[in-house]
């Protein structure tokens, strides 16, 4: 599988399309009414706003030359009312804008996060976690402006453009048509800039993602860095990563900033044209006041166009992020519920592997033709060298990966036909790498079964011998720990993780190196209790210390992805093979000793 590291850009080949925007629009759909209402409000506001120049031109044309102070006051009064209306509209606009924008963002982020939960180990294993994080948090945030200000401004700007055009047409048709000459020129400029800008922003989002991945990994690996005094080297790398982010930023803005000057120059050219033509037409159907008003409108006419240009800019930039977000939403989980998948009923715990073959990557065979039948309540131990495939076997049982060929059945049901959730809920897995969430120790154990009472949590901790050390902490079960497992040794984290698996009260229990970092004394105490813990459960135990193993109903010796020996302790001894050799050599050494 192609893995990605921090300094590798993620390729994404998709031509600029409005598909991303269309998908974004789907999120806006529920707010159609609110958006329309806001647009309506803004329409009123633009109307009120546009009265301004008209009132002034009227004052200059009529009331002032006519020394009509009363009339002037009336105009002023109307203007004040317009201002108040504008203010009220603005208040609503801000409110609606933030509500819609924020709600959409919450929804997109939630969809993204929910989808992430469905993705398989493969997804997480094949890219730096920082790159996933940046999408869910930072990229989605960067849409906020586009959605809150952008869209509604766009609509209202379009409307004010129409209204202004209306006013302009009302004053003079010829002049108005002339003012619109700028449009096609502007369109040409935009088309010219568009592609370069889009590429620049894609590059930027890549560099941003790389930088975040590097920061993220640096934080998580800080202890190793300090232990190996790699700080200087990392600083150098970070400088590079950070610098390429900076230069891609500069490149992006250099292109993006071209839009404004274009608009402004086109605007001044058309305005000049209007002056020339307008003045030549004075007396010829154009009054002085009308021309003054018209020129006033022309100024206002270009403002929304500039805004629309900005919105366009923002869209181009946002699509660079949208692509990444939707790409992740579109990522297909490799392990997923089949359409016909049904809930796995309460299981008894009979497990069967039928001719199971598996490889993480195409063509690779980690497991070869595994056949295995386990009765409910049996304890199965897996022994074998590191990397022989022990963990892989139990991972398949939880459907962390799906088999390449063959099938695995629980109680006679192919696990691929069951829903993943219903399967995993009935299994307790203690992973090799104990992960601790930030929160209290109590919360961490309770993760196994969220509705467990404090007593049940403590009970589970006692069963796995974690109680003594937890109660030894100054705040006991309420001690705050975090991801990196503050103040807990690996052994202690394993115990917490074990308690968590046990609390789930699963029918099938998988212990993968559950006790590798636990001292012998604790482990022995654990062993004594284990028999009761395992009663009534089908369990798979992977361990290098054989202490538990000999009590297992059956021992599987795994070598290079195959089961090479299988049987109880006694049977295997009788087979006089690999297991027996171990045993035999021990006999001798004891005799010698």
């Amino acid at each position, binding site marked *: 599988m192609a893995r990605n590291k921090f300094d590798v850009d993620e390729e994404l080949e998709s031509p600029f399309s409005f598909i991303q925007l269309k998908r974004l629009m789907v999120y806006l759909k529920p707010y159609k009414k609110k958006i329309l209402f806001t647009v309506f409000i803004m329409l009123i506001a633009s109307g009120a706003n546009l009265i301004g120049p008209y009132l002034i031109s009227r*004052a200059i044309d009529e009331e*002032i030359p006519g020394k009509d102070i009363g009339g002037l006051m009336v105009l002023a009064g109307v203007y004040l009312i317009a201002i108040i209306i504008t203010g009220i509209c603005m208040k609503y606009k801000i409110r609606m804008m*933030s509500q819609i924008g*924020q709600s959409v963002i919450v929804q997109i982020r939630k969809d993204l996060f929910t989808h992430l939960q469905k993705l398989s180990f493969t997804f997480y294993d094949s890219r730096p976690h920082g790159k996933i994080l940046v999408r869910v*948090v930072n990229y989605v945030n960067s849409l906020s402006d586009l959605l809150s200000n952008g869209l509604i401004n766009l609509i209202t700007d379009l409307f004010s453009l129409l209204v202004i055009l209306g006013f302009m047409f009302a004053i003079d048709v010829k002049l108005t048509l002339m003012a619109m000459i700028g449009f096609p020129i502007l369109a040409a400029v935009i088309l010219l800039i568009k592609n370069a800008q889009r590429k620049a922003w894609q590059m930027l989002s890549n560099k941003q993602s790389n930088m975040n991945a590097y920061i993220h990994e640096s934080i998580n690996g800080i202890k190793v860095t300090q232990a190996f005094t790699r700080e200087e080297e990392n600083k150098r790398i970070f400088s590079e990563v950070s610098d390429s982010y900076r230069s891609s930023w500069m490149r992006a803005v250099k292109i993006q900033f071209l839009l404004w000057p274009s608009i402004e120059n086109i605007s001044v050219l058309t305005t000049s044209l209007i002056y020339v033509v307008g003045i030549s037409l004075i007396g010829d159907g154009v009054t002085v006041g009308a021309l003054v008003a018209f020129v006033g409108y022309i100024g206002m006419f270009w403002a929304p166009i500039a805004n629309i240009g900005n919105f366009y800019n923002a869209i181009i930039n946002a699509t660079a992020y949208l692509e990444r977000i939707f790409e992740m939403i579109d990522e297909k989980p490799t392990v997923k519920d089949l359409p016909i998948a049904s809930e796995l009923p309460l299981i008894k715990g009979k497990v069967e592997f039928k001719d199971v073959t598996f490889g993480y990557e195409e063509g690779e065979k980690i497991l070869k033709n595994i056949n295995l039948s386990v009765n409910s309540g049996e304890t199965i131990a897996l022994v074998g060298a590191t990397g022989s495939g022990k*963990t892989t076997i139990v991972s398949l049982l939880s459907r962390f990966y799906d088999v390449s060929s063959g099938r695995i059945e629980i109680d006679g049901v192919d696990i691929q036909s069951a829903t993943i959730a219903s399967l995993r809920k009935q299994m307790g897995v203690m992973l090799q790498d104990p992960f601790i969430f930030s929160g209290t120790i109590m919360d961490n154990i309770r993760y196994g079964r*969220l509705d467990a009472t404090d007593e049940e949590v403590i009970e589970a901790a006692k069963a796995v011998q974690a109680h003594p050390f937890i109660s030894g902490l100054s705040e006991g079960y309420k001690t705050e720990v975090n991801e990196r497992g503050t103040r807990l040794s690996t052994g202690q984290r394993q115990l917490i993780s074990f308690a968590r698996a046990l609390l*789930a009260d699963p029918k099938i229990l998988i212990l993968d190196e559950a006790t590798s970092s636990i001292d012998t004394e604790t482990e022995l105490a654990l062993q004594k209790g284990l028999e009761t813990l395992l009663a009534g459960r089908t369990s798979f135990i992977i361990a290098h210390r054989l202490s538990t193993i000999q009590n297992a109903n059956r021992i599987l010796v795994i070598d290079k992805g195959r089961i090479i020996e299988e049987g109880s302790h006694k049977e295997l001894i009788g087979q006089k093979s690999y297991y027996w050799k171990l045993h035999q050599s021990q006999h001798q050494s004891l005799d010698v000793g």
Partner: protein
Amino acid sequence: MMQSIRWVWGYIRNFRIRLFSGLFLALVVSVLNMLNPYFAGKIVDKVIYGQENELLWIFLGSMIGVTVIKTIVRYNYQIMFERVSQSVIFNIREKLYDTLNKLDFRFFDQTKTGDIMARMTGDMEAVRHFTAWTIYMIFENITILLFAIGFMFYIHPPLALAMLAVTPIIGFFAMRLSFTVKPTFSAIRGQFARLNSVVQENISGNRVVKAFAKEGYEIEKFSKENEAFKEKNLDSSRVWEKYLPILDSLAGVLTVVMIVVGGYMVINQSLTMGELVTFNSLIWALNNPMRMAGWLLNDVQRFVASAEKVEELLNTEPEIKNETKSYNVKHFKGVVEFDQVSFSYGDEQVLNDINFKVRQGQTVGIVGPTGAGKSTLVNLLSRFYDASEGEVRLDGLNVRDWDIHKLRNSMATVMQDIFLFSDTIEGNIAYGNPNASFQAVQAAAKMAEADDFISKLPEGYDTIIGERGVGLSGGQRQRIALARAILKNPSILILDDTTSALDMETELRIQRTLKSFLNEKTCFIIAHRISSVKDADLILVMENGTIIERGNHKELLAKKGNYYKVFKNQVGNFDGVHDFEEVNYLNGAQ
């Protein structure tokens, strides 16, 4: 607020020439901005009303010329500001990264990854926005405002004065906005960090989430923070909703004042129509800055909220400092002494009165129950933590007196919790020696018994592994980490539970190879298996932060104390055999 601005100025000042050039150009643009309305006024006055048509071309030519120059200058100073801001945040980021590298384990034990990420991404964005945009917007608006006022006073002081009467009210509301909105931005930043943490942990812990089918719970947990983030944002927008329309309306009132007072003055003939038109075309220059005031203050407060967080992180002082007295040493001998060393974590005593001495080339085994303080003990040697009492000495000198980098460089630690980087296997092994040759990397891997499995991977040493080494088994990760430590060729090798996930056979082979490698090197081995430590020159048995037994394997067995008990447990009696290979090895070596 001033504090944050002063802080960011410390970074901006390096680019002050560029910044001031940019501001100067912005000033030029502001002046040029004045000109077009002036020309427009002249066109109305002289051409439209005055019929001096020949002037039209001059005015229009000037307008176009001014605009062309203006846009070019404007483009350039915008780029200048972007460059300044990018350089500023580049430097802040570097400094942040540097700070993070200097901070000690205690800090990372207590701070969530997501929080730090929030500082380095979202908060930096706010700083960027401020330096790239807000600073010059403020400057531009202030200059436009001042010019507009100046110009208006120049044209007609009484009318200008009348219009200015409104500004104190605008100022009042702007300040109110500023004060009210600040806490909402701090709340947003705080919530942003929480959201970041929840997502970050979910990603890092994805295996556990799936193993326990807790996706639903995770989504719920996430949704809570997600919704809260929205609420905090809405809280902030409720403040704008209240003040921004007021500010906007007050700015509009300026126009009303102009038309009423101005119109009255024209009627009184104390003002010409042309002057009124000029005022009218200048009104935006008065209006806009007033309108912008609210938004800009908003931006400033947003910046302050983030800057405070960034600054706080930058100002975090590591408790472990390099107060080096700079003793020059090329190579440490590896003589280690713990002299009445105690260590507490908060109010918890982790180590208590630890005393022992290790000669060069000796191997120390440390055994004891989980949480006895074994890892902490070796962490004191590398100064990942500092002893609360007593002295840890290396080559006769307190470890605090050595240069911390030299000290750590002389040691290689394989930590219990193996972290590998998302890099190639080769890159991971060469982590401590980035310039190591491939042969050296491979030799280290061979010694760590890792070459075999690495070579079997489709891409061998070029295989990229994920963070935390996912995709590799525990034993494989441990061996890569061991190779990483071996390649460093340290004076002191610290193996913290390094072989726990290895099968006995592999462990034995590693032990044999290590023997020749260790030679003159001092070595600490923390383990639970007696087999891992039994050859050590000194074995420390720890419990509850104290050394309860010490001696070599034989002596300790003879004591029939705790060590003996552990040994017995591991060897077991014949019928209750625990670990055949182990027993075999242990006994064979006796």
